[in-house]
């Protein structure tokens, strides 16, 4: 997709996901660069405990200290907020923002929070022969795949919102309208199209030619993915090296294995 793509110009669940993961990606990349020393404006973070669970100077009782290079997401978070949110915060006053901008800003924030929530503590022991008498710990970013998985789950449970706002976003569902929308909930305005048929105008490629799973019943199944059009079958041959053995001295001998599988693609 490109930023001009219809998928990002309409306010669907897919749009919500794209905004969230984009802003999360900016935080992730910048924080990594900070830790790697590639940027002049930031570096490793100095950890001071930010909650009850993380004591400020490590824990003498448990015998560990903060050390190493902790990933500092504060700079990345601020940068992402300034840079990614810029497009949608042009109207300075909150009231003049339209509903799409509010939706985007919310989803951007969900993406950033997703990273913040999944920061974890890693430790290493440097006692005699690796014993844990001396231990240093540091904070580390979650792998981006984990962030993606997290946001995918949020995508599945994303919340439809009303077009009319009263300064803040409101749920579409009447019964839960008073429940405020959390910063871990993706929000969307419009129902998604079914993505079955190609529609270039709306940025939909259709599912023709997509690989599908014949035996699954999930969204990857041929039944769902191909929208009832059926599927074609190809025979694919994989040649791999397998059964590798080390031979003294010094080379590795492998067999070549051939696997033949059926690949199904939508009609």
């Amino acid at each position: 997709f490109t930023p001009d793509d219809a998928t990002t110009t309409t306010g669907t669940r897919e749009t919500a996901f794209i905004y969230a993961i984009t802003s999360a990606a900016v935080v992730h990349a910048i924080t990594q660069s900070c830790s790697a020393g590639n940027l002049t404006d930031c570096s490793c973070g100095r950890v001071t405990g930010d909650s009850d669970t993380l004591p400020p100077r490590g824990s003498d009782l448990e015998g560990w200290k903060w050390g190493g290079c902790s990933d500092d997401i504060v700079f990345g978070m601020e940068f992402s907020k300034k840079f990614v949110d810029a497009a949608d915060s042009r109207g300075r006053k909150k009231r003049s923002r339209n509903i799409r901008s509010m939706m985007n800003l919310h989803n951007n924030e969900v993406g950033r929070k997703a990273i913040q929530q999944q920061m974890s503590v890693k430790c290493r022991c440097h006692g005699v022969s690796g014993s844990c008498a001396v231990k240093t710990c540091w904070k580390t970013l979650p792998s981006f795949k984990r962030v993606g998985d997290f946001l995918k789950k949020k995508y599945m449970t994303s919340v439809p919102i009303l077009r009319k706002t009263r300064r803040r976003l409101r749920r579409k569902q009447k019964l839960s309208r008073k429940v405020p929308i959390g910063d871990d909930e993706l929000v969307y305005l419009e129902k998604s199209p079914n993505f079955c048929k190609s529609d270039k105008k709306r940025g939909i490629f259709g599912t023709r030619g997509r690989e599908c799973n014949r035996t699954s019943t999930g969204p990857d199944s041929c039944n769902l993915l191909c929208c009832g059009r059926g599927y074609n079958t190809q025979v694919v041959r994989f040649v791999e090296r397998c059964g590798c053995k080390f031979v003294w001295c010094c080379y590795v001998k492998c067999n070549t294995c051939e696997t033949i599988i059926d690949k199904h693609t939508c009609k």
Partner: protein
Amino acid sequence: MPTLNVILVFLLYALVSTCSATANQWLRVAASAVSVRTEDACEKLHGLISRQVQICKRNVEVMDSVKEGARMSIEECQFQFRHRRWNCSTLINRRGPVFGKVLEEGTREAAFVHSISAAGVAHAVTRACSSGELERCGCDRTVRGTSAEGFQWAGCSDNVAFGAAFSQTFVDARERGRAAATSSRALMNLHNNEAGRRNLVDHMKTECKCHGVSGSCELKTCWRAMPPFREVGARLKEKFDGATEVQQKKIGSRRELVPLNSDFKPHSSSDLVYLDASPDFCVRDTKVGSMGTVGRVCNKTSKAIDGCELLCCGRGYNTHTREVVERCSCKFHWCCYVRCKTCRRTVEVHTCK
């Protein structure tokens, strides 16, 4: 279910489109009310070509099973496709029997109808053999002795060889020996007929009974049994989804059907093949044999083809509430009757616009 029967009769009537030589016209035999007892009755059956009438005359006693097979296969087709845009009951032009082009063209739908009807006849004839209704066949006597696993073959094994052979003689008669025997469509029909039978014959089950002390399995006798027809239908439905688009090619002196796209896997003898792409069946268009999906009941929560989004082709749906009266909280009273309350429940029914 009277409505279903009406549809069935209409469908059968419709199947006999007189202008088409390729449709499964013989399926109409299922609609004739009287059973076939004499050779003369064969002449009165509609939809048969002269070759099939000859076969009928020589096998009068089997014809009731053929009728049953035709009925079963149409019912199964409607069951398997009940959630599809094409739901196997596309009809009706009042002036005459038109099943629409769907079966006249070499579509996937036609492939399915051919395969299920060939399997249906084989199934029904085999069952008649096993239940002793026919003089010329009985249980499969070739299955006997002791098996490799150590049990005894006994009981009545289904004689599916006879059923399949009869299906081949009768159902394939339309395509064989004609001047058009080499046409792509005839080849397609023959292949799909055979595929239908293969999906029955290749999936025979072994059923057993234990006769040891108090039912233990020390003594076991087994027999070969056909799978339930529902299973055959489900299998063929899967073949429908993975059907291969083919074209005719001359290989040596023979004409064969090969995949249109040579990258695709060549079809096996149990796969379905088709020549023409199907319409999307969204709007009513009798020219292409599409009834459209207006008024069809759809599933609001499904994302698959039975869901309102896809079944209604994006036109949206109407929602009605309907009251369902059920018997509920039934209690058994000594002795001996059951007393129930009647419950009323409102359900939402969604139909395509």
